[in-house]
């Protein structure tokens, strides 16, 4: 009986996929310097895809009936750093994409100044036209390479309370933004109470090299992974990390505010691990040695 049920379920699943494929509609296509961008809508979910012919996954999605809820688990996870800086006044988001995370941050902290950096002008245009991204007096979009923005901000002596690195998805990682030197430049934009949140990969050889690199620059950091397949989020600070109890207290304080974005922040503290689960003997990534894409495929 159970077998029959699961058969029915999987049949239903197949039909669902089939039907939803029928409903998927391409509403916009655009070529940029870097990639082909496709906007596809399926029922109420609208997604930005890169290089669709190579079966790329969705880069950014929004539910057009409920624009506030963050679509991806990793996007929700990237708000976890708020447990460590309860009231950020300056924020930097490297990798704009569809803009859903910066929009949520700007909505949460309307008085905070937010810099969003995106290398691809076409992506910023699509974010504005199809993903409800809007610049405000306090939130500015900069079309620039993330590393250059960070380096120039460092020369100007800028400091941020919350830094989110989210430029690492898609089929190719920018290798100059994986290195010890880059992270040191990012650290230069941080003060004692700032937090860095980086959306990264959790699989392949690359995981070890990347972890060793973050460890060299920041020492101990939170390695945030949820059960099941997901990205991992690195959360690093300059001052010592908080324990689980302290995090829970902060989560409780935030839970109500972040609920409208679909962020189950109360579930997070137990998964902010400080355990070293990588091979510490691996080489760190530097400007001299940064074969991130080769390591990821090995």
């Amino acid at each position, binding site marked *: 009986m159970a077998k029959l049920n699961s058969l029915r379920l999987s049949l239903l699943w197949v039909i669902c996929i089939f039907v939803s494929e029928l409903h998927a509609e391409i509403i916009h296509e655009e070529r940029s310097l870097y990639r082909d961008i496709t906007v596809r809508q399926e029922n109420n979910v609208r997604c930005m895809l890169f290089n669709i012919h190579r079966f790329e996954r969705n880069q950014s999605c929004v539910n057009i009936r409920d624009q506030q809820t963050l679509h991806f688990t990793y996007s929700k996870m990237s708000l976890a750093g708020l447990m460590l800086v309860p009231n950020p006044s300056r924020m930097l988001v490297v990798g704009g994409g569809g803009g859903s995370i910066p929009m949520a941050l700007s909505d949460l902290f309307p008085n905070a100044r937010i810099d969003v950096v995106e290398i691809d002008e076409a992506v910023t245009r699509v974010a504005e036209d199809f993903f409800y991204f809007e610049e405000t007096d306090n939130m500015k979009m900069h079309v620039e*390479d993330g*590393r*250059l923005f960070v*380096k120039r901000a460092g*020369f100007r002596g800028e400091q941020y309370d919350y830094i989110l690195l989210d430029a690492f998805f898609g089929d190719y990682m920018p290798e100059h933004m994986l290195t010890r030197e880059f992270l040191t430049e990012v650290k230069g934009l941080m003060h004692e109470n700032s937090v860095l949140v980086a959306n990264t990969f959790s699989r392949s050889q690359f995981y070890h090299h990347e972890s060793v690199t973050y460890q060299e620059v920041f020492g101990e950091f939170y390695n945030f992974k949820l059960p099941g397949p997901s990205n991992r989020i690195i959360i690093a600070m300059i001052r010592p990390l908080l324990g689980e109890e302290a995090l829970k207290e902060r989560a409780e304080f935030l839970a109500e505010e972040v609920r409208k974005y679909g962020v189950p922040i109360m579930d997070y503290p137990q998964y902010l691990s400080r355990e070293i689960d990588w091979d510490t003997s691996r080489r760190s990534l530097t*400007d001299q*040695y940064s074969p991130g894409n*080769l*390591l990821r495929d090995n």
Partner: protein
Amino acid sequence: MTKPIPPSLVASMAFVSGFCIMVVEMLGARILSPYFGGSLYVWGSIITIFMLSLATGYLYGGKLSAKNPSARSYATFFFLSAIFILPIILLANSIMEPIFVAIEDERYGSLLATIMLFFIPITLMGMISPYSVRLLVVNTEQSGQVAGSLYFVSTLGSALGTLGTSFYFVLWLEIDQILWAVFFALALAGFLILAISGIQSREDG
């Protein structure tokens, strides 16, 4: 010709120079990226300047080959190329940082940095090709065939240099270690030319 050079040696040298040019070109984008990013502009600057450097090298290498081509001048191109690899290893950051500070637009910043770092060594390596042709051409009927075979080996070298660098060398070694290898390969090539042509001329004499 003062000293004869065996054709197989000239062919090997053409291979080495083709190989080294592409190793340096593939590393160029990585060298520039901390200051000028990973945008398409950086590759645009690199390919443009490498093409211009090679064009200049072909022109002057051809001109120099017209009078008294010798193993010694041939070897000199390799020694000079090796020497001008050194600033890329030793001075890259101190050359790029002031350019990064002075020029906001990364298109022109990367263009200038590429000229400063690569124009001289790549021009020198470009001079090797026409000079190699001159060393091997004996009569006009064969000239096309000689040029063809030399283009063949040097472009084969370029293809392998590209593949080796992008698939393997950057996975095994640091950028500067690869550049040191290029330095030693070019210097060794220069010494080999002098040594082998020296032996040959003594035998002939």
